[in-house]
């Protein structure tokens, strides 16, 4: 299940700056993974040439470290289950991928826990998201927004 902590988070395994964390921890095989290749194409519009080279339509050939902060955070979520990442580094265009990563992890018997400082739009379909602050599971956008705002989490 996707578990989201809204607002400030103090935890030893919380990563506030996933961009920098990615640059110093990523492994080559994370980049060439099928899901990473799809996410990099969708979010950044870029092609993976190899684990350390990306072809960007805007920036030309760039090193992996210059992927967007959003896609770096997604790749971390998919490959590092020990940390809680600051998903405010991700825009709304990352939401469907966060749900896809959650599905992937659930098949391995794992949850995905992230932190958000804004109301990311998870779309109009139903979902199961636990608001970690409240230990409450919500199933659609309306329930999510009401729970977060009514409880003053943001």
């Amino acid at each position, binding site marked *: 299940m996707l578990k989201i902590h809204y607002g400030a988070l103090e935890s030893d395994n919380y990563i*506030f700056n996933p961009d920098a964390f990615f640059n110093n921890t990523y492994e080559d095989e994370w980049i060439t993974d099928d899901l990473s290749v799809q996410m990099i194409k969708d979010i950044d519009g870029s092609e993976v040439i190899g684990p350390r080279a990306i072809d960007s339509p805007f920036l030309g050939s760039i090193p992996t470290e210059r992927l967007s902060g959003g896609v770096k955070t997604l790749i971390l979520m998919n490959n590092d289950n020990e940390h809680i990442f600051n998903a405010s580094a991700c825009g709304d265009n990352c939401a469907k991928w966060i749900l896809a990563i959650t599905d992937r992890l659930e098949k391995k018997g794992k949850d995905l826990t992230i932190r958000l400082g804004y109301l990311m739009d998870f779309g109009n379909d139903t979902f199961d998201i636990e608001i970690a602050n409240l230990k409450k599971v919500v199933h659609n956008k309306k329930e999510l927004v009401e729970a977060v705002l009514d409880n003053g989490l943001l």
Partner: protein
Amino acid sequence: MIGKYEIEIYNKRVHYFLTVKRNITILQGHSATGKTELIRLVSEYEQNGASSGITVKCGASCTVLTSVDWESRLSRLGKHIVFIDETASFLSSQRFAEMVRGSDNYFVIVTRDDLQQLPYSVDEIYGLRNVSSSSKYKSFKKVYNEMYKLQNLDSLT
């Protein structure tokens, strides 16, 4: 500082046109729209000037404030346009809010988080969008304001 500042920043690959009207401008929106690249260009120009290959056209000096020694640096800055990326951990601090209130700088802040302690207008929250078919030129697009939240809630009922 008062009034409106037009900022043009470009290298051979990307080109930004920005207009800042008030002391705090917030930049947010989808991932991979060029926000961090904008900060990187300002930073490289600040470090290397024209020899960076970057051009910055603006009626005020532009600078990037990072988490390193931010309080001391900010206390010495005046009449600058200060760019801050979302990776700056001090953004949500009370001390930063106090220093912004007493500052004559303009601030362009990349963040999606709601910075409740900062007195910024909901009319000054922008995103970046491509404005040419070649995707080479970028400019501000207003993407978020107070009505946007209300419309979101209305659409749920």
